[in-house]
């Protein structure tokens, strides 16, 4: 994708690069500090730029659906959309994806998604009661099961090695994505406004 090819897209090449750089830093930290097991999980770093482009396409489709023209999106919505974009593009992968042996392998991309989302919302991940474990696991399930059908044309082009300028995509939010997106936005709204999530 060339800079000229992106020039007409609502998100600049610079904005995409900036967001991708932050995502890369978070992903690397997860491996470097042992939150994710570096000996059992691979980070496919080039996917992060692709997922960032996918996120901006998804954000555009969402805004066309729910946000008045000319308005920017809010943090909780961005967190939700970024989380499901991360899960869809799966930058992390266990070495043996058919044999995930622990929680971090089973939910490596969802952990990345939630850490990024909570980080941008400046929220902690508290485990001060048994119910909190269930709460967070339920949120991981929602992220994992979001399929992001909206991005199917973009992903098909990527898989065919056919690069098109992002402004060429006129994506409308797929009905199947609305539940996951609405659910996550609502959850992040509650988490962000809770004194002790």
């Amino acid at each position: 994708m060339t800079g000229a090819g992106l020039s007409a897209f609502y998100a600049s090449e610079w904005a995409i690069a900036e967001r991708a750089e932050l995502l890369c830093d978070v992903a690397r930290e997860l491996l470097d500090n042992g939150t994710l097991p570096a000996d059992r999980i691979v980070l496919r770093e080039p996917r992060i730029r692709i997922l960032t482009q996918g996120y901006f396409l998804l954000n555009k489709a969402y805004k066309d659906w729910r946000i008045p023209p000319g308005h920017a999106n809010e943090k909780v919505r961005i967190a939700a959309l970024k989380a499901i974009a991360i899960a869809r593009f799966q930058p992390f992968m266990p070495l043996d994806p058919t044999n995930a042996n622990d929680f971090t392998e089973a939910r490596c991309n969802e952990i990345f998604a939630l850490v990024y989302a909570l980080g941008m919302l400046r929220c902690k991940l508290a485990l001060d009661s048994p119910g909190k474990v269930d709460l967070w696991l339920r949120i991981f399930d929602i992220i994992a099961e979001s399929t992001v059908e909206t991005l199917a044309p973009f992903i098909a082009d990527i898989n065919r090695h056919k690069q098109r300028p992002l402004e060429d995509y006129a994506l409308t939010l797929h009905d199947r994505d609305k539940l996951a997106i609405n659910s996550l936005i609502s959850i992040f709204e509650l988490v962000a406004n809770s004194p002790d999530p």
Partner: protein
Amino acid sequence: MPITSEPDLPIRSVPIGGPAVEALDRRKESSSNPRIAAAELRDSYNGVKDDLFAGIKALAQAVSGSMQR
């Protein structure tokens, strides 16, 4: 009275449509914040990242215990 004495079987999912449903789907949500810069996101993340990593590690440990039961 609009009350029937029959359960109106079979039970199936009947989509309710019409202008009110279309209007609900077309509705816009309020969103008035300025555009968010990557630097602001990075600052937010840096402010809580150690707690997040610790939280994930504690969660993994808790789940590990429950998976062995």
